[in-house]
């Protein structure tokens, strides 16, 4: 009998709570705080001095990655209230981090195995905490050769970035570009590559031949580029890890502006082959080496770029009178014009995220980087100078790197797709024609 009363009481309480369920006021949030997220990155702790030094350096790499993204405000370690000693004895004290308004706190630990041997390894573990929920939201560990500590730091940066923003990261990636160097009185162009933050800089060619338009395979660390090695322009494919090089295109006429398909199996290129010097867009199967012509128009068609789903291609054409952007299906059908409006539009690049296409606009003697949605409804200008060119997207489609010429010197710049956070990307030499790699595995 007692049981039945219990059941009845339960039923009644459920009914009452159901009755009250709608008694809530609603607030429509419209205007969140767009300031960078205050984040604390604590130096990695270690037992020995060596470990602590590496831990400090890794902290610097992570902090500068996050800070430069423009989405994080990395708090100065001097402002951290909780000391390393206190962290060791009593663990993280959330209250101390809330006091300095840290929305997330990273702490970590590093152990170096086999110090003094030829191949020491670093064992790094870290945790990301939410001081308001008072719990960890991410915990991971990496083991790698000590010499790759920068790589590990980039990986951790990506982990933190992804967890807090919900977007894929882009820090574990490289940027290939054309570096210009004065050798005596002659200006030479080399193909060089570096980490996205400018670290691990190295050049892949010696500058004896002219090199142009390097482009990354969207899945692998492979680059396609043009070289005038024997006086003729040819397309080369370079495998970065092995340094192996092969010729993929040796066609009659100019071959320029190559770009990979999203699956990396095809290239789209511009050729003047066999139609009286008129550039047309072709696709080239890298396995069968078969060419397929995609555009048929007496206007100039060039600079093709695949959409990330591989179904569409955006390209540049002057068939409407002045250079503008056009979109067609991957097989060349259903061409439609994408951009109208002022100025001439060049060099489209489809974002890996798929929602935007970056391009260069020339108007009244000024060049700017712009983005447009794939329907062509809304165009947004991100930069402006006398010569901004060659935009390329970060692997997560958040940041654009481009080349800006000021006077005689050309430098690489980055900008966020919201149009904020323009920064110079420091390179030892003048740099142009950048291409961003996919995330390193």
């Amino acid at each position: 009998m007692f049981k039945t009363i219990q059941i009845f009481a339960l039923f009644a309480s459920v009914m009452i709570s159901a009755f009250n369920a709608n008694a809530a006021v609603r607030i429509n949030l419209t205007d969140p705080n767009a300031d960078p997220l205050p984040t604390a990155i604590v130096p990695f702790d270690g037992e020995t001095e060596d470990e602590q030094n590496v831990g400090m350096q890794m902290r610097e790499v992570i902090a500068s990655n996050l800070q430069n993204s423009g989405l994080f405000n990395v708090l100065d370690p001097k402002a951290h209230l909780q000391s390393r000693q206190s962290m060791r004895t009593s663990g993280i004290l959330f209250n101390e981090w809330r006091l300095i308004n840290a929305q997330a706190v990273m702490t970590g630990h590093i152990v170096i195995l086999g110090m003094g041997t030829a191949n020491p390894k670093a064992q790094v573990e870290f945790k990301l905490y939410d001081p308001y929920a008072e719990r960890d939201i991410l915990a991971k560990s990496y083991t790698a050769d000590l010499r790759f500590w920068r790589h590990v730091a980039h990986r951790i940066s990506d982990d933190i970035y992804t967890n807090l923003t919900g977007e894929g990261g882009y820090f574990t990636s490289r940027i290939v570009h054309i570096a210009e160097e004065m050798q005596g009185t002659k200006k030479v162009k080399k193909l060089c590559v570096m980490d996205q933050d400018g670290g691990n800089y190295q050049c892949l060619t010696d500058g004896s031949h002219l090199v142009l338009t390097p482009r990354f395979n969207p899945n692998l660390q492979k680059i396609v580029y043009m070289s005038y090695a024997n006086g003729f322009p040819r397309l080369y494919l370079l495998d970065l890890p092995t340094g192996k090089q092969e010729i993929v295109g040796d066609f009659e006429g100019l071959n320029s502006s190559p770009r990979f398909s999203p699956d990396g199996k095809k290239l789209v290129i511009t050729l003047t082959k066999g139609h009286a010097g008129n550039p047309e867009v072709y696709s080239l199967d890298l396995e069968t080496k078969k060419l397929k012509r995609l555009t048929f128009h007496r206007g100039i068609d060039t600079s093709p770029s695949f959409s990330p789903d591989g179904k569409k291609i955006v390209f540049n054409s002057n068939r409407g009178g002045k250079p503008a952007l056009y979109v067609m299906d991957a097989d060349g059908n259903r061409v439609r014009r994408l951009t109208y409006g002022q100025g001439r539009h060049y060099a489209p690049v489809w974002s890996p995220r798929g929602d935007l296409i970056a391009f260069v606009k020339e108007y009244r003697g000024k060049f700017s980087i712009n983005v447009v949605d794939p329907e062509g409804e809304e165009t947004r200008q991100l930069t402006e100078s006398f010569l901004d060119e060659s935009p390329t997207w970060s692997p997560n489609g958040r940041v654009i790197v481009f080349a800006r010429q000021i006077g005689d010197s050309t430098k690489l710049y980055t900008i966020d797709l919201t149009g904020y956070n323009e920064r110079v990307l420091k390179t030892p030499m003048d740099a142009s024609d950048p291409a961003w790699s996919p995330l390193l595995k």
Partner: protein
Amino acid sequence: MRKALLISFFLHVFVFFFVMMSVPDNLFPKDKVQTIAIKLVAAKDVKKTTEQKPQKKVKTQQSAAPKEAPKPKKKPQPKKPKKKAPTVVKDVPKKSQKPKKTIQAAEKEQKKEPEKVAEKQPDPRPAKLDKTEDKKNLVQDNSKDAVPVEDPEDFMKALSFIEDLKAEQSAMFEGEETEKTTINVAEQAELAVLKKHIERNWYKTPGTKFIKPLMLKLKLNRDGTLSSMEVVESSGSVSLDNSLKRAVRKAAPLPIPSDKYDTFKEIELYWNG
């Protein structure tokens, strides 16, 4: 005998809950669901909407009238001097002490109202300060809420403006069941303060791809601290959900008026890109 007792007990319980659930509107007018749609509009726009649509005033008046019906004679009271209070006592002999309090409370509120909004913005935690007063208000809650505190004409004007917003909002969220009732100007301002307070604490990554709307439901304690929080509709991004949760925790205790706990005890936060 025992069986009959048991049946009688259950019947009583049943009747009790039946009454509780099916006729609450008449018994407890206070418990009415209040959904407050809030939208910030520039001051000049507000004037326009109220001036352009005078016929709406009448509508609102009609809909608002029955709610205040149980205590119709109190309306003019706040304007009268205190001494006249005893005359009211005759009308409501059982609650002889309450009317006085109501007047005082009304006067209190009248004084408070204009200050509240101004005060609250700089101070993120005003709710705590009111703690002692809170308990007194608890007792008076029922009578107090029904007392209109503003000049009736202004009040109606404001209501007609809200009516417009409501129409707009209900068009946005069709098929939603929550009953819409009118709110007063003070509550609207308090809600705006609350909105600002949460938004200021919400670090949202700008420029992320919008997937779907996010709805978070909060239950608050009387002092504005958080009793519970649940994601009713996820935005499709755990990071975004977490960022709003973090904002609420950071914003707590929320600046809710201590005397209107029943209105603000449950809050839905909605983000639509």
